[in-house]
């Protein structure tokens, strides 16, 4: 007899053995199958060869995705007084890893061989800071017993206490009032599987089948966008603010985000230092003028 429907409260979500206070998670796994049809025997009715369906043939290993949306909290991302475990968990500080994230759990299902594709969060007034992470998964999932999320006194990162700042190349942070902030880091990965490494018959004894030999880390780019009262004036073709007579020797523009809990506990700091990619200004009736500024940093 199958288990009853799993309640959200009983659906524990953990990544690399670390529990997350998620408000949604979407796990998908799919084989890559190609339909194989061949020419069959002659058929008098159509005066030609019948088409025979032979099979679905696998063309790659099992591949899936995990999209998880969660709240950043002090309890979960501060260990031993170090507030930046969130960076380590998502390997942002180290520039991502080729090693798989194992020991993952979504509801009743556990799985290994997971690799981060992107991580992002939003800060907006009076809101809890909500993050999103997206992963690629290789191999299959296994069912586990239900594990309830253990509630504690969660102290979420909160935009009321958290703050961010922007400094344009030629200006200071005081020039801007930040209304909201977005952070997004994306890693491009490549994957391949060896032939011989998967020829052993033991591969067939597990549902996982072939898993990649290497999921490499390619380019890593992070982008931060703020909504503010101002735009960057005198933006030049290099993406810098140029107030002097030379476009050379200017510093990069930078956006910082400091995440703090409602109790004022420091949780994490994120930043992007690079060139201004875009900016815009919108004014409409009944609204203040709102500017959007995006800075991109090339990590790798």
């Amino acid at each position, binding site marked *: 007899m199958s288990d009853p429907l799993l309640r959200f409260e009983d659906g524990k979500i953990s990544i690399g053995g670390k529990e997350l206070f998620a408000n949604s998670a979407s796990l998908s796994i799919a084989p890559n199958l190609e339909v194989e049809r061949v020419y069959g*025997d002659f058929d008098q009715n159509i005066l030609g060869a019948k088409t025979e369906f032979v099979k679905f043939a696998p063309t790659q290993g099992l591949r899936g995705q995990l999209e998880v949306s969660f709240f950043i909290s002090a309890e979960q991302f501060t260990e031993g007084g170090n507030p930046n475990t969130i960076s380590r968990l998502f390997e942002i500080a180290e520039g991502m890893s080729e090693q798989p994230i194992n020991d993952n759990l979504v509801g009743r299902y556990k799985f290994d061989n997971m690799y981060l594709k992107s991580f992002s969060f939003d800060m907006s007034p009076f809101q809890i800071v909500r993050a999103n992470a997206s992963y690629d998964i290789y191999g299959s999932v296994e069912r586990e017993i239900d594990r309830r999320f253990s509630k504690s006194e969660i102290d979420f990162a909160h935009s009321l206490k958290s703050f961010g700042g922007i400094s344009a190349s030629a200006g200071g942070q005081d020039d801007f009032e930040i209304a909201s902030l977005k952070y997004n880091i994306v890693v491009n990965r490549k994957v391949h599987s060896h*032939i011989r490494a998967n020829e052993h018959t033991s591969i067939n004894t597990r549902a996982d089948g072939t898993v990649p030999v290497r999921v490499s880390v390619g380019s890593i780019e992070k982008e931060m966008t703020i909504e503010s009262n101002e735009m960057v004036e005198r933006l030049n073709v290099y993406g810098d603010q140029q107030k002097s007579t030379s476009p050379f020797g200017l510093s990069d523009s930078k956006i910082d985000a400091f995440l703090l809990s409602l109790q004022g506990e420091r949780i994490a700091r994120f930043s992007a230092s690079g060139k201004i990619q875009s900016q815009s200004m919108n004014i409409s009736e009944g609204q203040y003028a709102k500017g959007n500024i995006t800075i991109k940093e090339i990590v790798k």
Partner: protein
Amino acid sequence: MSIGNLFKSEYLTHVSNYSGDYQTGVDYKKFDFVYYTGDGLFYYARQDAVDGAGIFIQDNNRLSLIPDGPMTSDGQSHYILDTFNLLDVPGAEIKVGHLLNIDGSTGNNDGIYKVVDVKSDVSSLNGNPDLNGSVINVLPVEGSFKNIEPAGPNELTVTAINAEPSDNTNVWAHDEFFFDADYGSTVNFRANNYKYEYGNGYYILQPKNINSLNIEVDLKFKNRTNRETNAIVHFLENHQGQHEQDVPSPNLRYSQGISGFQWDGDSTFHPYDNTEIQSKTFYCNDWTHDLNFENDNDISVKLRNLDTSILKKLDGLFVADIDEYSNSEYYEKNDIVYNVENKKFYYWYGDQSYAGKNPTATQTEWNRNYGYHLDVNTDCWSRKFFWKPSLTLSVSQKPRLNEIGMGAGYSQIYRDGINESLLTLELNFNNRDDAEARAILHFLEQHYGAIPFQFNPPAPYERLKNFVCQEWTHTYNYKNNHSISAKFEQYPIEMSASQVDNIITPIMPIAGELLCESPVQFSIQGIGEEIKIDDRVKKRMYAKNGGDETIDVDAMVFYNDNVEFSILTQNGNADISMIIQDDLIADDFIFTLPSDTSLPFDLANKTVRMSKSYTEGLAGGEIFTVVRPDGDRYLTDTYNGVANKFFQNNRGVITSMARSQLGMPDYFAYHPRFLVEQFIENNKTNKIPAGKTAYWCVVFEGENTDRFVGVSSVNQESGSLDDIVFVDEIDAEFYASSIPYDQGYGSLLAISNSSVYKIVESLVNIYISS
């Protein structure tokens, strides 16, 4: 770089050698490559090469060997359990990557193993609390754990061995391309044929030479680390003839070119993962390296093989290890067998699995349609190309017509004979599993692009036609998923596989032909041991059936001249006493000696095993071992603790080898009976099968001749003193020989149903010494 270094092979590549010269005591990672000054060659690390660091554990009651480790993609792993939990003390610090040599096992577990994991303080290995301590998880390199071996009183030795490049091929490769390619790699086949066209669309294809079928293996390596990429490119750059011993010359001997390298078992893939292909020589002078990102490279490598002889079809050209048909084996679709009857390969076509379905039935008469072997069970076995092509297929035709140009731009087109539009089909066989891909590839290579085969194209072209396939490509898409594309060209003559085999009328088998050796020389004048006139000497005489049918020998008649010859055990001319040794089994050499009490050494009624070997000459003969039955076998009997063996030479002297060995007197004795007589009586035949050799024993009956008079001191006519004189029965005539020998003659007439000569005469001669 000095001029001297310029010519050292160490510097003849573009890729930098970051590991430099091999250093003992240094750990190397997989894909590192080193220059080994010991032999001046480069070596490439197949796996992490961890220095042994002198680690040596030798103890009893300490180490347990447990076969049941986790199953890995590299096979079954094992555990070494250190019950003392002392792997962190100096001298025993075993770590991942070490190669351990285990010696002294009483459970047949000795061998070399690679460490893949080390854990201390394990309280319950495999859920068994009795198994606790430090655990080394190992993978077999040479040998494997065959039995559980708990720590016990026997002294086990575990040594971490150093991986010197020149003597550790498990860790270092020199001439073996071991790099594991990606899915999507392809193998291209192309046959080099002469095409002879005869008009009306008729043609034949003829291989240009015995190495006409070439392959090019296009290996894809994607997303590889710099370490691996450097090793691959360096390996290829370093196999362009830099290390050849012979100086290149414009007149190369065949074997003097670049020696190439092997496509190693760690790189070959289905269905080329066989020792046949791994022993072939490959070359590479075409590769591409794309540097994509900081540690991300794509490489495409084309390996070529140039010397696969199509004469080695039986061993398999590229797809090997095909078993012979077995009547007890259950076969299923796409199984391949080699049928020894007609020396052809057959492919299981049926959807059901059966045993006992012979591919052919042997016929007594040769027939143009099927020769001597009629294909049977054709609902199971096939020699047609029966695999169905994948969608889609494009068929274009361009009929062959003649066109004549006339004035004012007018042209007239007219027919150019028959077979004006032979089909060319570009077929795809996509997403095929391992078994089907192997069968298709084997089928195509066994026709090596020149032999036509039957194929039924999709309707409306579905009439069974003959095709040849001169080029095809195999792509390994994914595990158990292969695609093959092949170009089928219609062959204008429609024939079945059996008809193709029997285009040439075979040489008809000839009737049996008896070939007897002649002359048979008992002794040679002045050479070797002499034969006296009163000796009794035997000698084997051989005959062969040189024909294709069994010969019946009806009579053997000795016509003696001046001496007496006989055939051992023969009782009358029609009593044929031939032995066909090739047709005998071991038990035929065991027999019981007659109850002749005059036999020396108490041999009467003894059961003996005669040796198969026989030595010629007067001192030669046969060995007999006294045996006693023990159930369904025979054990050697002993005499005073020594194997009770006898040797009887061709003069009849029996030597007790046991007595001789024990230093006892009277170890030999003459007996007029040859012990081999009973063996001949038991096994003699008058039939010589085709191609077989028969023998029989001719005996010189010196002491029995009634024509012997003796040595005369009187020269009766032309003789002189000490001549040997022969006279006939009535003393009417005598013959005197030259001093001091005379030659005796006899002729053996063998009468048989031989096709060429019914009667074959062999001359037997003997020199007799005074």
